[in-house]
């Protein structure tokens, strides 16, 4: 992995040398529509006055976009920034979005904010690192961007200076980002597809735009780019040891045989008759989706239905590779651990307990090709978030202090090859990597 990255650095330097010149030329020619070198527009005269209802609308949209998920530090003041988004290329601190004049957006105009969201350019014209998901946010309409701006202007100003970026050289440089943008970024506002109804289009707008689901639920290449072809194909979360299942694939999180109501329930409450969210998706439910209206969540679910056409991969059946039997010793050890530690809640046959403990038989998280999620669940346990629909969730204990890596691998393997489940055995090495 590190060797690969090492080679990649050299490759990138070469790409920067050639591509940088090309990208600057493109930008210079104005072909990208970036206005990267345009002078800062003058600060609007007089205080900003929101239109009626605009602040409330913006507050809701900020939830839909989960802005606070990154721009609010743990235990910190809302939208005052400070959380560092770790990427394989270094850390990107989320800046202060409150209207403080010196450290926040106090001097920003609505046009500056639009340019950040739509073009991924800072007020001084420099490109943002795509940890700020502007490749998704570019689809947001000007009207919604202005409402978000109005909401952020309405927040109490918090003086909190932004932390310096921690991207390793050369990833954070303007030429490197220009190359990245030339390869992966296309500005464009969401255009409703006439072939689909308003609900589908609303869902598409939220899922692909403000909701930026693809930021995690898409595979990324070595440059951290998600291509259009990779939409909702699932992605390993770099630095987090979680896997965001493919929303398009029925065998992962795909919705081929789950009705929209259950997905709405999962996003609204954190639990559904068939499971619960833990890990990074619990963050999303807690700070974003639980606050959305039933109509918007339903629209998102409709858009993600395979029959809707959003998911070209959904109906294509994957040829399931033959899964070899796990070593009998590992299964035997795993069975013993399961019956000591897991069966009381998840049941002798992995049947689970409705509303409290997910069934493991047929559980897609258990059956993913990558075992990282089931290993993470065993190691760290977790509670789904407290939500209006599930204020007092049942929890799962962490086993990192109770079971060693060999035992975790054994019980994960047992769960993946029992109760009718069929997924590859888990090695001790795979557990160690998640540790």
């Amino acid at each position, binding site marked *: 992995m590190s060797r690969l990255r090492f080679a990649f650095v050299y490759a990138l330097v070469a790409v920067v040398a050639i591509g940088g010149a090309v990208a600057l030329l493109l930008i210079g020619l104005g072909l990208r529509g970036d206005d990267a070198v345009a002078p800062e527009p003058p600060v609007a005269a007089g205080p900003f006055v929101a239109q009626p209802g605009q602040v409330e609308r913006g507050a809701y949209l900020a939830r839909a976009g*989960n802005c606070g998920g990154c721009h609010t530090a743990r235990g910190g003041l809302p939208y005052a920034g400070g959380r560092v*988004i770790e990427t394989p290329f270094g850390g990107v601190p989320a800046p202060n979005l409150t209207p403080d004049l010196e450290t926040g957006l106090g001097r920003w105009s609505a046009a500056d904010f639009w340019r950040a969201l739509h073009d991924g350019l800072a007020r001084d014209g420099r490109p943002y690192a795509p940890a700020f998901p502007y490749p998704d946010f570019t689809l947001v309409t000007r009207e919604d961007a202005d409402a978000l701006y109005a909401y952020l202007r309405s927040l109490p100003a918090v003086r909190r200076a932004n932390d310096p970026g921690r991207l390793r050289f050369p990833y954070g440089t303007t030429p490197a980002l220009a190359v990245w943008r030339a390869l992966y970024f296309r500005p464009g506002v969401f255009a409703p597809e006439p072939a689909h109804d308003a609900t589908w289009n609303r869902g598409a707008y939220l899922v692909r735009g403000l909701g930026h689901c693809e930021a995690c639920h898409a595979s990324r290449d070595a440059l951290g780019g998600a291509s259009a072809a990779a939409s909702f194909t699932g992605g390993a979360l770099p630095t987090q040891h979680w896997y*965001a299942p493919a929303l398009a694939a029925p065998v992962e999180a795909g919705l081929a045989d789950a009705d929209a109501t259950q997905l709405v329930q999962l996003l609204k409450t954190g639990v559904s008759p068939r499971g619960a969210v833990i890990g990074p998706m619990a963050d999303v439910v807690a700070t974003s989706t639980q606050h959305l209206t039933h109509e918007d969540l339903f629209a998102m679910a409709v858009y993600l239905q395979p029959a809707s056409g959003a998911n070209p991969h959904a109906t294509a059946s994957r040829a399931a590779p033959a899964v070899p039997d796990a070593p009998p010793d590992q299964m035997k050890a795993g069975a013993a651990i399961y019956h000591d530690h897991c069966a009381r809640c998840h049941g002798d046959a992995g049947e689970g307990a409705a509303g409290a403990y997910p069934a493991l038989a047929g559980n897609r998280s258990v059956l993913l090709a990558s075992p990282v999620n089931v290993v993470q669940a065993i190691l760290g346990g977790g*509670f789904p978030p407290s939500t209006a629909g599930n204020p007092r969730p049942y929890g799962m*204990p*962490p086993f990192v*202090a*109770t079971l060693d890596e060999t035992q975790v691998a054994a019980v994960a393997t047992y769960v993946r090859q029992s109760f009718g489940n069929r997924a590859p055995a888990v090695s001790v090495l795979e557990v160690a990597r998640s540790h």
Partner: protein
Amino acid sequence: VSTRAHALAIGTALALCALGAGAADRAPLRVPDTLAERVRACTACHGPEGRATPYGYFPRIAGKPAGYLFAQLRHFRDGQRENALMSDLVSHLSDDYLREIAAYFSGQDLPYPAPRPSTLESAERERAAALVTHGDAARGVPACTRCHGDAMTGVQPAVPGLLGLPRDYLVAQFGAWRNGTRHAATPDCMHRVAQALSADEVSLVANWLAAQPVPADAHPAAALAQALPLECGSVASPAGTASGAAR
């Protein structure tokens, strides 16, 4: 444990523990709708009903003052206390639920096991006992008993007891206060105390405390017998100006 830091873009993954496609033939288990059942994630480490023993690392939480437990849960959630497992577990639990969990464990009125035998020499025991019961006025270190109660079983609602806890846990808390990974409400009196003690003294005191039997009445005292010797943001100050009882 993985860093769980937020990843590329707003770190989110469908850890969709879910969608068990009806493969189970059996009827699902029935689960009691009780807090005891809901907090099984806690009791795996903190012991049944929260009564972890003085052996190992995990502290007993059964019977500790509810205000103290609630403050700790919030601190793990909001970052004033560092422990990746605890923080991840409670990161999305509401104040209401955390208050309920704190009250549940606080209400567990259960016997304590015998303490762990001391490994101290008699001279060390005397030195530790002197620090605990008299402090060191020259360095501004108050006796433990001044704040944690004469019996050191804690004081309602926010001061924890010091007995029945593992030695390693006590040592780790002093370390966390010294290096700033554990905070209490400002002014943070325990930070001052931890700064004033040497590593050697911390080890002696922790070892001594872990070896003390818990008195027959192990309940926290109802109120402080006298004004606090230091200002503590977690409890009413010596001047009597309350400042955020549980924080």
